[in-house]
């Protein structure tokens, strides 16, 4: 083979070697799994919903990636022109949609609308020599890694609601209205006020706007009008309501008068023809303990049994009645909400050990009402059973102020256990919460936090009586040495108490050096 052909031969061979190498390397694209990026609260992803009946998604696969539209940036850019640059006016009020009055329209109409308006404005901006704005398709439609949106729904708690009541001079009809069926008109009727979300759904249904459009239309316009009149007004930009830190900065009123909506103070929770003991429900006290009506009335202000039926799942996914009351994983159910209360640092010290199963006499705490025989239909007048925890007993031999735990003292001196100090602190927390008071029932229940597995009350069993030796393998019972440490250090860890070091509780007998 002459030398030239040889070089050719060399060339061909190196090419295939190189391609093999690239093939190997290409085969091993490494997947990036770093932290997901956060998307600003004012960024709206203009992904046209794919709801087949409204938007035919025939060419779904040909679509370009959705555009992430930053509302805040545009407001800054068009600051002087005011909102009507994009939002049309209807009866003097801004429509919270882009250059259109209703959300309806086929996909093509909307696509055409967005392209005409956005590109028109951008071309104009470039023509006027303003800063560079995206014009090419890929400059808006580019695929970005999946992001976590910082957008948070605004939560109207009692304090914020009351500030709006004062601002609208107790005229509820400013926001609340119901549809008068016959005249197809919005009217205001006392005692029918409810959360906006109870009626306004995900999407416009004819005249009834989606929650998003309805809320923006009323709230933002009202804020704008008050601002125009120079009065104190709420935010008008997205971040104002929807970003977490701004929500924290919303002023919280210390005391808020009760929201009168015809709700009872005290009522029986009882479903006719069921045989469980009726539950005395102190509605007034629960209002103070919750942040807003929709904490429990998550769909409507009517009673739970209107939508939830015993033993059967509702058609729109409503769980059965007993689930509605007892489902521990839901935030709206009684048990679920109560469990969330025990997750706080003050309660976790003991409650982290209780785990899932309910206490033995927990049911009777609520179900303490009469049991209706089938004949009876009328429940007696609910009377407030006030549960007052009796005071802590005085320090005595049975209720020592300090316990010197010395039985295992060897390398460490005896531990001076401030028994009374701890109990008073915990007892104060229990008394401060009516819920705790109700479920604890007696002051003695607090003792079962440490003296578990022994009946509440005076002289519960000492740790040594059960924990002297480690239990047999299959029983998870530590010896005394582990029982003391696991109980004390475990509680301190859960309650975030810093004293967890060895010398925090007991000094060393052999002295630091010898150790």
């Amino acid at each position, binding site marked *: 083979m002459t030398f030239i052909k040889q070089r050719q031969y060399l060339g061909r061979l190196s090419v295939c070697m190189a391609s093999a190498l690239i093939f190997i390397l290409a085969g091993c694209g490494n997947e990036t799994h770093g932290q997901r990026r956060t998307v600003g609260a004012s960024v709206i992803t203009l992904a046209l919903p794919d709801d087949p009946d409204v938007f035919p998604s025939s060419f779904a696969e040909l679509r370009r990636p959705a555009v992430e539209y930053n509302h805040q940036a545009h407001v800054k850019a068009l600051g002087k022109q005011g909102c009507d640059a994009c939002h049309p006016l209807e009866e003097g009020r801004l429509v919270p949609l882009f250059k259109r009055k209703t959300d309806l329209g086929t996909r093509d109409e909307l696509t055409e609308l967005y392209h005409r308006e956005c590109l028109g404005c951008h071309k104009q901006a470039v023509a006027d020599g303003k800063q560079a704005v995206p014009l090419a398709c890929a400059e808006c439609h580019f695929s970005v890694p999946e992001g976590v949106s910082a957008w948070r729904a605004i939560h109207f708690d009692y304090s914020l609601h009351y500030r709006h009541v004062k601002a609208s001079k107790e005229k509820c009809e400013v926001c609340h209205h119901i549809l008068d069926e016959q005249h197809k008109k919005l009217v205001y009727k006392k005692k029918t006020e409810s959360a906006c979300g109870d009626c306004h759904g995900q999407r416009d249904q004819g005249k009834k706007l989606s929650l998003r459009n309805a809320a923006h239309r009323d709230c933002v316009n009202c804020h704008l009008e008050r601002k125009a009149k120079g009065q104190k007004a709420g935010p008008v930009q997205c971040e104002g309501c929807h970003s977490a830190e701004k929500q924290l900065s919303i002023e919280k009123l210390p005391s808020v008068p009760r929201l009168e909506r015809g709700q009872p103070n005290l009522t029986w929770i009882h479903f006719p023809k069921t045989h469980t003991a009726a539950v005395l429900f102190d509605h007034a006290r629960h209002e103070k303990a919750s942040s807003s009506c929709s904490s429990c009335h998550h769909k409507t202000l009517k009673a739970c049994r209107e939508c939830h039926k015993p033993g059967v799942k509702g058609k729109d996914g409503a769980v059965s009645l007993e689930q509605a009351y007892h489902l521990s994983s839901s935030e709206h159910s009684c048990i679920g909400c109560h469990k969330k209360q025990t997750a706080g640092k003050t309660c976790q010290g003991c409650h982290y050990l209780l785990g899932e199963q309910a206490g033995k006499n927990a049911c009777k705490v609520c179900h303490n009402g009469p049991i209706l025989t089938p004949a009876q239909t009328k429940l007696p007048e609910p009377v407030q059973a006030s549960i007052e925890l009796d005071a802590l007993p005085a320090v005595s031999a049975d209720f020592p102020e300090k316990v010197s735990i010395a039985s295992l003292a060897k390398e460490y001196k005896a531990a001076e256990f401030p028994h009374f100090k701890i109990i008073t602190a915990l007892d104060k927390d229990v008394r401060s919460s009516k819920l705790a008071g109700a479920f604890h029932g007696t002051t003695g229940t607090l003792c079962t936090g440490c003296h578990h597995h022994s009946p509440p009350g005076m002289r519960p069993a000492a740790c040594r009586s059960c924990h002297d030796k480690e239990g047999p393998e299959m029983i998870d019972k530590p010896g005394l040495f582990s*029982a003391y440490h696991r109980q004390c250090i475990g509680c301190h860890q859960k309650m975030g108490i810093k004293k967890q070091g060895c010398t925090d509780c007991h000094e060393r007998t052999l002295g630091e050096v010898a*150790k």
Partner: protein
Amino acid sequence: MSVSRRGFLQGMAAGTLAAGTAGAAGFKHFEGYPGRYGLLHDVNLCVGCRSCEVACNQVNDNPPPEPPTADKSVFTKMRRPTSKQYTVVNRYLNEADGKPPVYRKQQCMHCNEPCCASVCFVHAFTKTPEGPVLYDPSVCVGCRYCVNACPYYALSYEYEKPFEPRVVRCTMCYPRIKKGLKPACAEACPMGAIKFGRREELIKLARERIRKRPADYIDHVYGEHEFGGTSWLVIGGTSFAKLGLFEGVTHESIPELGSGFLSVVPLIVSVYPGLLAGIYAFSKRKERLAREEREAAVSEAVSKASEETKQKLSAAADKAKKDKDNAVAQAVKKALAEAEKASGKEVSK
């Protein structure tokens, strides 16, 4: 361990040299000594007080651990057991979700099927019925293959000793167990984060603990199956990979992996002699055939050559005979002629 795919693969791979199938232990399965001891380590309970290190060093008369237990800076660096300290406690921060740090005690795991025992070529490690894996320094050659192979980095070697260096590690306090006591670390742990007991019972107890508080524990008892299972079991709320343990490793034990291929060795030893003798015979036969061919060719050449010479010889012989006859005939004619002339002269005289 049925004829594991891995063993078979190795066999086949090596079998390319000699047809052979391998499976370290054929299709048998081994449960280990019934009722053997183990230790359950709950990392949720461990608070990193290192009392276990102190107790371990006392029982094995090693110097007290450096730095002393009060000095928390020890947790800034990851440590591993050494020849002067058979167990260490390390801190694993899961700062991602701000939860409190997690501490884990590290020592020899006393595997059900010990890797150190399988790789030692003088069988210095034996798995005792009580559970611990014990080391016999009287046969150890000091090759340190065990220290090099232990997947848990648990073995240490006494490099400082020139004449009788030993491999040292936790023995699960074998003397104390024989006396019916608990291992020193289990005894010393204030939080009961180390529980000593029968291995099967501890697995049940671990499951019970996980069932009681599902939010605090990952539903997996580490050490039940990993590499054939270990005596030390670990449960906790943090993923085991973050605690320096393995995740998703095979349930096959390391002796199975390590000696999977070795079952092919006796096979090669038995097959090779016959095979190679055959090849040698084959190549010798080829040589012999080649030699015979050559000889045949030579002899045939020789015979062909000899024939020609014979013909040539016989031709030459005939020619010679003819020449001779001619010469004789001429001589006779000449003699006759002379005799006539002589008689003629005589007559004319």
